[in-house]
C-alpha cells in the first residue's frame, strides 16, 4: 500500500503549494479571507481528530480555541510577552485545559459527553465575561500595534503586514496537515479509529481505550488552541464571541461539510462555509440560516461530507 501513501503525500503537498501560489493572485479581500480561513481550518482539523477519527462528538471546542486565544492575547496585553512566547503559552495552556476536560468529560459517553463539553465551554464563555478586569468582558482585548512585531535572527516579522500574516497562517496550516497526516497514518491513528468503530472490541484487544480517547482530546485541544492563539496574534483582537457556542458548532460544521475523518476535509469545509456565509450575509441579516440548512442537508443527504463521499466512492486511499 506504499503507492497509496505516495499518492496521498503528493495530494497534500499539492494543496499546500496551491495555497502558497494563491497569495500572488488573490485580490485584497480574498487574500484576507484566505488568511482567516487557513487559521480556522487548523481549528477544524483539530476538531476532526476527536470527532472524525475518534468518534467523540464535542460541542465545546470553542473553549480550546478560546484558551489559546486568551492565553496568547492576555500574556501579550498584560505581561507584554513576545509573540512567539505568547503563541507557545497558548498551545501549552490549551493542552493543559484539554487534558483536564478530557479527564472529567470522558467519564461520560455519547450524548452526555456532548452536553458536558457544551457546558464547560459555556463556563469558559461566561468566565471571559465575568473576569472583566482581565478580559475586558464584551469589549475584548485589542493588542497594541507595538506588540505585533517580533524579530527572529535579527530580521523583524511585522504581523500587520498582510503577506506576512498569510504566510504565517499557511505555515501553521502546513505543520498541522503534517502532524495530522502522520498521526492518522500511524499506529495512534489506527487506535483512534479502532475506538471509534468498536470500543468494547478494542478494549478486548489490549488497548486502554480511556487513555487513547484522552490522547485524542489533548491533541485535538492543543491544535484548536494553536489556532486560537494564532488568530489572536495575527488579527490583534481577543473577544468573548470567539468562545461562544457558535464557534464550537462552526468547527463541527466545517468538519462535517468537508468530510469527517479525512485530513483535508476540514480545510475544504472551512473555505466553502466561510464563503457561503459571507455571500449569504450580503443578502440577509439572517445569514446564519445557511448554517442551519447546510447542517440539516448534510446529515440527511450527505452524512460523509464531500471528501468522505469521494473517499468511499473513488479514493479509498484518502487518509
Amino acid at each position: 500500500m506504499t503507492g497509496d501513501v505516495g499518492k496521498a503525500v503528493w495530494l497534500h503537498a499539492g494543496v499546500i503549494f496551491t495555497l502558497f501560489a494563491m497569495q500572488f493572485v488573490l485580490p485584497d479581500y480574498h487574500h484576507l479571507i484566505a488568511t482567516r480561513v487557513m487559521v480556522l481550518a487548523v481549528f477544524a482539523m483539530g476538531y476532526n481528530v476527536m470527532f472524525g477519527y475518534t468518534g467523540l462528538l464535542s460541542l465545546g471546542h470553542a473553549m480550546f480555541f478560546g484558551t489559546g486565544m486568551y492565553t496568547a492575547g492576555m500574556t501579550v496585553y498584560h505581561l507584554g510577552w513576545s509573540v512567539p512566547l505568547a503563541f507557545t503559552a497558548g498551545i501549552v495552556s490549551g493542552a493543559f485545559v484539554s487534558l483536564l476536560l478530557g479527564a472529567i468529560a470522558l467519564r461520560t459517553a455519547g450524548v452526555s459527553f456532548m452536553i458536558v463539553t457544551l457546558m464547560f465551554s459555556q463556563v469558559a464563555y461566561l468566565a471571559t465575561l465575568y473576569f472583566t478586569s482581565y478580559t475586558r468582558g464584551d469589549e475584548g482585548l485589542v493588542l497594541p500595534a507595538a506588540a505585533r512585531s517580533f524579530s527572529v535572527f535579527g530580521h523583524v516579522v511585522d504581523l500587520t503586514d498582510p503577506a506576512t500574516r498569510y504566510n504565517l497562517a499557511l505555515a501553521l496550516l502546513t505543520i498541522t496537515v503534517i502532524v495530522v497526516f502522520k498521526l492518522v497514518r500511524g499506529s495512534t491513528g489506527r487506535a483512534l479509529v479502532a475506538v471509534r468503530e468498536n470500543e468494547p472490541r478494542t478494549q478486548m484487544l489490549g488497548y486502554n481505550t480511556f487513555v487513547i480517547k484522552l490522547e485524542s482530546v489533548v491533541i485535538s485541544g492543543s491544535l484548536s488552541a494553536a489556532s486560537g492563539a494564532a488568530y489572536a496574534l495575527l488579527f490583534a483582537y481577543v473577544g468573548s464571541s470567539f468562545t461562544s457556542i457558535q464557534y464550537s458548532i462552526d468547527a463541527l460544521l466545517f468538519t462535517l461539510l468537508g468530510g469527517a475523518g479525512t485530513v483535508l476535509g476540514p480545510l475544504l469545509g472551512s473555505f466553502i462555509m466561510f464563503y457561503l456565509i459571507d455571500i449569504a450575509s450580503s443578502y440577509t441579516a439572517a445569514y446564519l440560516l445557511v448554517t442551519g440548512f447546510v447542517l440539516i442537508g448534510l446529515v440527511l443527504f450527505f452524512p460523509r461530507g464531500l471528501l468522505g463521499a469521494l473517499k468511499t466512492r473513488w479514493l479509498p486511499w484518502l487518509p
Partner: protein
Amino acid sequence: MDFGPYLFLASLEGLVQAAVLSLTALGLSLVFGVMRVVNVGHGEFYMLGAVLAWWITSLISIHPAAGFLIALVLSPVLVGVVAYAADRLILSRLDYNPEATIVATIGMLYVLQQLALIYFGPDARPVEAPFYFRVQFPWFGYSGYKLIVVVAATGLLLASWFVIARTRVGLIMRATQFDGEMARALGIPVRRVYSLVFVVGAMFAAVAAVLIVPIRQAHYLMGLDPLLLSFIVVIIGGLGSIRGTIVAATIIGMSDGIISVFFSPTLAKMVSTFLVALVLIVRPEGLFGAKIR
C-alpha cells in the same frame, strides 16, 4: 435591604425561575427519555412560543387578558405543528440516530432562530400581562403576575405527572421508554409515539415561554439560556427521569435565583454548570437517572 427580605426576594425570583425551568426541561427530558435523542433545538421552540405569543397578541387588539389566553392556547399549538413537521421531515428520516439527531437539531436551532429574525425582526417584543397588580410587601413590591406563573406552572406539572403516571397514553409512553423493541413487539406504534412525544416536548417549552413572555419580552435570541439551563437540569436530574427533572429544576432554579441576587447572575450560571461537572464525576448517570449508553 436587610438579609431577611433580601433572601425572601431572592427565593421568589428563584421560584419563578424554577417553575418555568421545570416546564422547559421536562419537555427536553421527555424527548430524551422516550426517544433517546437530545433536541438541541429545544430552546428555539421556547423562543418560538414567546415570539408567536407576541405576534398573536399584536394581531388581535382586544382586552390583553383575552389576547394572552388565546396566545397561551394557540402559540403552543403552532409550535407543536412545527415540531411535528420537524419530526416527520427530519428526525424520522434519520431513524432517530442519536448523533445525527444532534447535528440535525443544531441545524433546526439556526433555521428557527433565523426565520424568527427575518419575520419578526431583531427587536425585543413586549406582551401585555393578562392582568397586572403589585404585591406590596413591607420591604419591596413584587409582580403579582410572577406569582401566578409559579402557580400555573405547578398546575401544569401536576397535570403532566398525572397523564404520564395514571393514563393509558402515559403507560404507552413509559412502555416505549422502557424498551422500544418490546413496545414494538407489543404492537405499540412506536413511530407515532415518538412523534407525539416530540410534539408534546416542544409544546412544554412553548407554554413555559408564553407564561414568561409578559415578564421577559420576546426576542429571537432568547432560546439559548433556557436550552443550557435545561441541559444542566436534565443532566443533574438524570436524562429521562421526570422526577429527577423536576427536583433538579427546583434546585437549579432556586440556587440560580438566590446566587444571582446575592452575587451575580453570570456567576450563578457558572456555578450551576460546575455543579454539573461534579455530578458527572460522582455519578455519570445523574442523580436520579438510569445509566445511559
